[in-house]
């Protein structure tokens, strides 16, 4: 019996498979896809979304014999919703927009001030997007121009930006790339407001969009990673400068490696921060919370041009102390500007209180930003400089 039935089942399966084969609903050949690596969003004057996409031209990137065609193209459309704008893009582009490789979303300044949550919904909801891309704000230029700048050295502009953000984060610490799911979590979280990377264009826009931009050894137009923008909820409220951004990253423990420059006697000292760990705590006195930040950093003396005797232990101690003071200053400035000017808690102090004392948090949850302004923050920085490189003493003209 088995054989007959088995054969029959096999037959039915084959028939059905044949029937099913008539549709290949989801398949897209690789050469039918426009691989979008960066998207820019802004508002137009008549309150529609402006969408700019940067689409790569694979054959130009993977080729052995480069032509004069640009490695990426941009398309822009408008629409009442972003999805509409995405779909309208097919009017202009020969291919379907493929979004899984998205590296970067650039939000226009105006839109950022208005609120970014709404447009981001699509980026999180749609299955095509993966969640590993950075969200940035174009600080001065409009997004369309910004995304049209060709970058030297790295053929895909979006890749250049992504790598730059990561490089700044890892080597200097004055910026911080934020991915979409971090951003959404923080916007929705009442105890912490997000910061967002700013992008800045240097040089004239006209030359940047031309392929000749990358033919110069010193490209006239460049895009640089700027410091952090501060969001209150989902609205951009201001920008921190370099010191404040650094201070912010120190509080978050996001410093992998950084540089502290401070004056020492008759010169300056450059300290390379190697690693550190941070500890945030909250204590309650009379039901009033106060935050303490503890930083333990380890570093090297990387550059020094003041006449000190580095073989003396107390000189190192002194340098330690100066570095500590410098870092404390950075953090204090950062907290001060947020408490006084932007009135938004980007440091996650509220979240900390929520974690440590959920009952108290319930009482302040809804006007946390007000409370935050009054919050006392104690900063304790401990720096230990361990090594001084290959030279034992400052290298000076006289020996």
């Amino acid at each position, binding site marked *: 019996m088995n054989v007959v039935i088995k054969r029959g089942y096999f037959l*039915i399966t084959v028939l*059905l498979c044949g029937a*099913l084969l008539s549709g290949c*609903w989801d398949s897209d050949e690789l050469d039918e896809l426009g691989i979008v690596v960066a998207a820019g969003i802004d508002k137009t004057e008549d309150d529609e979304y402006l969408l700019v996409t940067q689409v790569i031209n694979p054959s130009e990137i993977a080729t052995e014999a480069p032509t004069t065609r640009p490695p990426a193209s941009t398309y822009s459309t408008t629409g009442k919703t972003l999805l509409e704008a995405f779909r309208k893009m097919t009017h202009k582009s020969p291919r379907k927009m493929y979004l899984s490789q998205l590296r970067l979303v650039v939000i226009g300044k105006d839109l950022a001030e208005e609120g970014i949550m709404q447009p981001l919904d699509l980026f999180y909801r749609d299955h095509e997007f993966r*969640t590993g891309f950075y969200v940035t704000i174009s600080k001065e230029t409009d997004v369309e121009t910004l995304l049209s700048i060709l970058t030297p050295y790295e053929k895909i502009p979006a890749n250049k930006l992504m790598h730059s953000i990561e490089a700044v984060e890892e080597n200097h610490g004055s910026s911080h790339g934020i991915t979409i*799911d971090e951003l959404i*979590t923080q916007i929705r979280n009442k105890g912490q407001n997000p910061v967002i990377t700013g992008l800045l264009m240097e040089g004239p826009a006209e030359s940047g969009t031309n392929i000749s931009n990358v033919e110069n050894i010193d490209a006239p137009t460049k895009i640089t990673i700027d410091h952090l923008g501060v969001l209150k909820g989902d609205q951009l409220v201001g920008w921190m400068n370099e010191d404040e951004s650094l201070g912010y990253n120190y509080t978050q423990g996001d410093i992998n490696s950084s540089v502290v420059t401070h004056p020492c006697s008759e010169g300056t000292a450059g300290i390379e921060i190697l690693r550190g760990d941070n500890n945030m705590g909250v204590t309650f006195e009379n039901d009033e919370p106060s935050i303490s930040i503890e930083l333990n950093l380890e570093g090297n003396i990387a550059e020094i041009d003041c006449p000190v005797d580095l073989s003396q232990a107390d000189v190192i101690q002194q340098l330690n102390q100066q570095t500590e003071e410098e870092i404390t200053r950075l953090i204090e400035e950062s907290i001060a500007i947020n408490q006084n000017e932007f009135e938004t808690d980007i440091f996650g102090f509220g979240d900390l209180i929520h974690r440590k004392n959920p009952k108290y948090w319930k009482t302040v949850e809804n006007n946390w930003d007000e409370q935050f302004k009054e919050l006392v923050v104690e900063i304790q920085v401990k720096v230990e400089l361990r090594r001084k490189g290959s030279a034992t003493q400052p290298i000076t003209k006289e020996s």
Partner: protein
Amino acid sequence: MDNQSISPRQFMFLVILFTVGSSILIVPSPLAIQAKQDAWISISISVLAGLLLTLFYNQVAKQMQNKTFVQATIYAFGNWVGRFLLVFYLSFLFILGALVLRNIGDFMTTEIIPQTPLQYTHILFLLVVIWGAFLGLEVLGRSAEMFMPWVVLFLLLFIFALLSEVNIENLQPYLGDGFTPVFSASTVVIGTPFLELVIFLMITPYVKDPKTKQRAWIIGVLVGGIILTMITLFCILVLGSDLTALNASPSYQVAQRINIADFLEGLEVVIGIIWMLTIFFKLAIIYYSVSIGVAQFLTMDDHRPLLLPLGMGMIVLSIIAYPDVAYFETFVSETWFPYALTHGLILPVIVWVGLMIRGMIERKKNNKKSNSQSS
């Protein structure tokens, strides 16, 4: 019925896969909505409840004495009352099957192949399930043994690859809103895999070695429960309770974070495969049980002729079962628990009591007989 039997080890694997399958997709999100960062506590509570349930099921299985639940019910309550009860039991299993089928269809069409019509996704999946149910329990048990190492391997990969993404602060504050939401959330998990374990009352008679099979069942539930807990824990640890609640299938979303050496990205589809494997076994067990249940209900010799017709019904039901995802969400969070409780606890209790009474009557009869014989 076909004289197939599976070893306790295979039975344990089937229990694990059944417990994990489909719950892994649908459980973390509603848990996180209700219990927030304490979701893992409520899932641990429900694992305990699941273990207690399993102990109870083992008692029922002991009373059934090598009969399936269907046969035992007919034996205990007679042809008519027994069949009346069984209509509910079998329809519960059938609906469960349709919902599980819809789960995998929904998951596939939201995350992986969005343009493929739901029906075809279901038909293809169910064809393989029917093939499995056709080949029988023995083959299902063996293939569970084949796939189990892979499931374990990929789960370990999942956990180790995500260790660097873990943020322990996401779990704090512990019990921020007290115990109430934690307990009320745990009903979701009790309802979704653990009360459904009642289905194994259809399978136990086919397990060899009655001594170890109880232990196998309990260990299976425990391991499955631990896997579920780990997955939920990792969703919260990596995504945070907020995003876990926000996502339709957080366990899949969390896999998107896997990034090994900047090269192995996009492993979420691989993880999706593991979810698919577990769901396959869950559905195959359900389908097999439904078909032998119906066959025994109708006192047929072989369940195989029923496989294809029942499949047509299950596909239709899985399509019409809910018009949209929101309907499903409310159904799962509001109606499913009492529904599963009725069939997963109350019905077995009734049958258990019935079997005990029946057993006593039989024993009396036998005593009388032996007395009259001896006298």
